[in-house]
């Protein structure tokens, strides 16, 4: 293959092809160009970044991505376009997980239950202190918080006004990406405490869960 040099197979390896983008991507190339771009990067890419790189409008990008998604669906492709965190990403079709794992080898990714609990608490209650997490879980969560910070699933989000000004924690966009969510609005709904309160109006007021209901902002 004579033009193999131009083929970018490995992200980050290639330098030569990184010339200045010349003008804008012709409309007939938009879908394959976007497909190639998303294939060649590992992280989700925002619409604006794609539009800027290809010299087209964001509407053209979303339109072409819609066409790409439609084609993947129609042809039963093993790779699908998803919108996660703040951008677009190509991912394998979930039903192919077994075969992908078999080819990739290695241990499957796992999250421990304590880690999931801690993530859930931070996700719903953020910004939240370690004390809050400890209270709800009934055990010390320091080690887990640290691990989740190291893994970039949580971030530091300032300090609380509580005595001692403890650190506050929040979730990151990597959290959204991991769980395939577009925003925190995609979080599962928490069963609420209203039932309890109806039965027992004397019960002291329960803490209200600030849950992003449907629309976030």
């Amino acid at each position, binding site marked *: 293959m004579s033009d193999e040099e131009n083929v970018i197979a490995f992200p980050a390896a290639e330098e030569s092809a990184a010339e200045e983008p010349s003008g804008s991507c012709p409309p007939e190339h938009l879908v394959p160009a976007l497909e190639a771009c998303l294939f060649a990067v590992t992280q989700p890419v925002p619409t604006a970044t794609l539009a800027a790189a290809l010299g087209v409008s964001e509407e053209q990008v979303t339109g072409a991505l819609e066409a790409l998604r439609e084609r993947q669906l129609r042809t039963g492709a093993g790779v699908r376009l998803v919108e996660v965190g703040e951008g677009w990403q190509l991912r394998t079709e979930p039903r192919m997980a077994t075969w992908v794992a078999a080819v990739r080898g290695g241990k499957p990714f796992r999250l421990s*239950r304590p880690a999931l609990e801690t993530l859930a*608490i931070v996700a*719903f209650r953020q910004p939240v202190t370690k004390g809050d997490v400890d209270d709800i879980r009934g*055990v010390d969560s320091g080690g887990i918080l640290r691990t989740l910070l190291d893994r970039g699933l949580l971030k*530091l989000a300032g300090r609380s006004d509580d005595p001692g000004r403890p650190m506050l924690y929040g979730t*990151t966009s990597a959290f959204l990406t991991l769980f*395939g969510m577009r925003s925190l609005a995609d979080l599962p709904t*928490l069963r609420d405490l209203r039932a*309890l309160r109806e039965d027992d109006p004397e019960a002291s007021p329960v803490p209200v869960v600030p849950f992003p209901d449907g629309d976030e902002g």
Partner: protein
Amino acid sequence: MQAERTLQVLPQPEPQARRAEPPVHIGVYDGPLDLLLYLVRKEGVALREIPVARICDAYLRHLHELDEIDVDKAGDYLAMASTLCLLKARELLPKAPTIQGEEEEEDPREALERRLLEYERFRDAADQLGRRQLLDREVFARPMEPVAADEQPIDPTTDTWGLAQVFYGLLEKQSAPPPVHSVAFETYTMADTVRNMLELLDDGEEHTLSELWVDMPFRRARLITFLAALESAKFQLVDLWQRIHLGAVTLQARVRAAEADLSMLADHEHDDRSAGG
């Protein structure tokens, strides 16, 4: 009426099924609330109708059955035990007539119920999160090639933690005690180091490079380990990645130590030595 029910069930012998259960380790439970929730669910009652005496007994019995208990965590479990015993005692005693407006303090039973209920909600939420299609579990993106630290992008908005890690890492390095004696360089060969590293990684879990360094006071040992990590990644013995710019270098074995073919490392022996010197 609750007191009546609990009194009634107190002398109940332990059901057969429960006795047949294998001994349980404390590690199975994610804290006292988790254990308590498990027991309540096993009773098949709603949280609001917890038969305190029965649950208390079950809880204590469970603590006794645990053949090993982490000293650091025992406190949390025992604190819960004392709360349950207090509740049990209160329910066995006739309720003192309350003077109007006096009992302002929250009923400890209600407080416990509320904690349990809240904990249960987050457990459910955690379950729901765990059932999503997780990246690298059910769905896969294009994998990242292992690249040099300086090639990694940085996301400063989430990297206050990373900044702190860098700073405290420097301080630690600065204050590390100097080695008291020197070790012959020949101690470390690339193949040996890779083999040792793979053995440490044999649990299949993710480990950071600094974890592997824990017992290595000498720069050279660390350097060789670092090189070994890179070599292992090159020969696909391990997966190696940094999730964030300058973040922890994380490793996970792709092969078992016993099965790893390290013959290709022999050729590199000489080079690596000179690189390390």
